[in-house]
């Protein structure tokens, strides 16, 4: 009924105009806004979210621990140990005490961040890429391609993540490699082989929703190829739920690595991770609980910050909450 494109006119004069259209004064045209997109809106909302800021700070600290651990340990390295200090409690010189081998728990905890976080990051990246790719193909092309890929997803989904990780890792020969990246890669693969399924499902349902949208049909009508449509239209619009899950999964993978290490299957010494530290500290829990609890706290806080981040991102990206 109303015409939103009506032009602005000056304030109405005292007399009535002969034509009923003109003479109406309308609210001034809104000033040209910057183009708003889901992402810029989300970013704006994120910036003001306390949870986002808090998790951001925490993650930043963990990143420092990962890449510049010596900054936080004041130059001490985690491998110089003194057996005579074995299992001594926290003091002013060793804030977290000493572990069974006389190594400084604080230093090891800081250095332990790297392996744990790397596993989380790479596992997430792997599952996002693999799972996301499969999800896009299944969701976009549908038909028998979708049927096969969905069956495949169901099959892999049937193996719970931890069980699968256990299987894969207990089948690998006890490697002699002590290379950090080798170890990390092994665990990433173990987690990734099964972890891709949840990404796939989300991406697939996201893509299915988007592919039926009018703008996709319009693009096709204009002659865009499938590849182009996927790249430019489908993927950017389906990304949001995936990002939320990925962020939360990152926390989950850090936890999963720790659990696998706790079972003795994950990263092997001399690679230091929070999980291996907890595993080592297990038998001494009654006499030296600090050996276990400090890395456990760091671990929990790391997982917590990623989950909080994921929550904040989800709130920001959720169009329903607008």
């Amino acid at each position, binding site marked *: *009924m*109303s015409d939103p494109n009506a032009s602005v006119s000056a304030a*109405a004069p*005292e007399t009535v*105009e002969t034509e*009923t259209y003109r*003479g*109406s004064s309308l*609210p001034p045209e809104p000033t040209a806004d910057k183009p708003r997109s889901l992402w810029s809106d989300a970013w704006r909302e994120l910036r003001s979210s306390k949870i986002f800021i808090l998790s951001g700070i925490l993650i930043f600290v963990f990143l420092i621990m990962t890449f510049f651990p010596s900054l936080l340990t004041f130059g001490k390295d985690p491998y110089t140990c003194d057996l005579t200090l074995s299992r001594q409690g926290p003091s002013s010189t060793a804030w977290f005490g000493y572990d069974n081998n006389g190594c400084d728990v604080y230093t090891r905890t800081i250095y332990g961040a790297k392996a744990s976080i790397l596993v989380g990051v790479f596992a997430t990246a792997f599952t996002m890429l693999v799972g996301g790719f499969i999800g896009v193909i299944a969701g976009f092309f549908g038909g028998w391609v979708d049927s096969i890929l969905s069956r495949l997803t169901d099959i892999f989904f049937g193996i719970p993540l931890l069980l699968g990780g256990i299987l894969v890792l207990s089948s690998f020969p006890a490697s002699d490699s002590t290379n950090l990246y080798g170890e990390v890669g092994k665990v990433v693969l173990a987690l990734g082989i099964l972890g891709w399924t949840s990404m796939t499902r989300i991406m697939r349902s996201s893509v299915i929703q988007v592919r039926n949208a009018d703008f996709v049909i319009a693009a096709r009508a204009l002659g865009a190829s499938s590849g182009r449509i996927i790249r430019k239209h489908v993927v950017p619009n389906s990304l949001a739920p995936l990002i939320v899950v990925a962020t939360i999964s990152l926390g989950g993978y850090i936890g999963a690595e720790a659990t696998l290490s706790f079972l003795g299957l994950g990263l092997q010494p001399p690679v230091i991770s929070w999980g291996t530290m907890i595993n080592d500290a297990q038998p001494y829990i009654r006499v030296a609980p600090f050996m276990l609890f400090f890395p456990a706290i760091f671990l929990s806080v790391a997982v917590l910050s990623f989950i909080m981040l994921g929550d904040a991102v989800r709130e920001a990206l959720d169009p329903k909450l607008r």
Partner: protein
Amino acid sequence: MSEHLLDVDDLYVEFRTRDGVAEAINGVSYTLDAGETLAVLGESGSGKSVTAQTIMGILDMPPGFITGGRILYNGKDLLTMPESERQKIRGAEIAMIFQDSLSALNPVFTVGDQIAEMFQVHRGMSKKEGMAKAVDLMEQVRIPAAKDRVKDYPHQFSGGMRQRIMIAMAISLDPKVLIADEPTTALDVTVQAQIMDLLKDLQRERNMGMILITHDLGVVAGVADKIAVMYAGRIVESANVWDLYAKPAHPYTQGLLDSMPRVDSKGEELYAIKGLPPSLLALPPGCNFNPRCPHRRERCVREVPPTEEVAENHTAACFFWKEVARG
């Protein structure tokens, strides 16, 4: 003056939100008698649904706040009644049907169950007795094979059938007042006509007072006795149905009537009222309609026009209604 069945008296409702206070209803008054049909006409945001929800008592409060006025049902003010008493009236004496029947019905209960619930809760009947009543009601609203379909779920019915189920639920306990909030907006034109016929028949049989909320002038013509036109939370004109169509006295009403496409205006440009309805958070000063009004003057921005009597049973809230009536 004899008592009206329902008397909304100078009602004020506002919504307090993070972005400010939205004045949703500003001094709305209308009455309804038994057997009468009142159509409340207006665009989205005019306050027509909010008024109905306030009468029913299903408004979300907060963020909604009733800041003034009374709603008299058979002389008693609903707004000051204790909730327990109000609950007995709700559904049993004043009932409401909604626009989107698919989302308005609970998807996990059978339609029979949902109708029977009325009898179970208000009349203390057993489930079996309630279901029997449900079948009876479904037949009354002309749902074919009611006995077989009573155990079906809402999503198994078409839109028109679902609307009938909502109507069955609403009239189940013989309410005195039926409020229909855009009952046909989501339906095809032919089904619309059927549903409106059904409502009219039911009303006549039971002598119900009916409030029909809509934005569609076409639906109103054959059904209503009187019309209240709402804009930005106020009633800008109210009259008997024939008087409104023949001699509108408010620029907004005139605009609505003019924007209806007519058979004899073939080849001409369609008219539309310029501009958009105002935001309830920041209503224009003076007469709320002034930014879009072709008759607007200085006075309209400065003062709020009172409701003036234009003719018998015909009021309009405009300083210059005489010009509108002339032109």
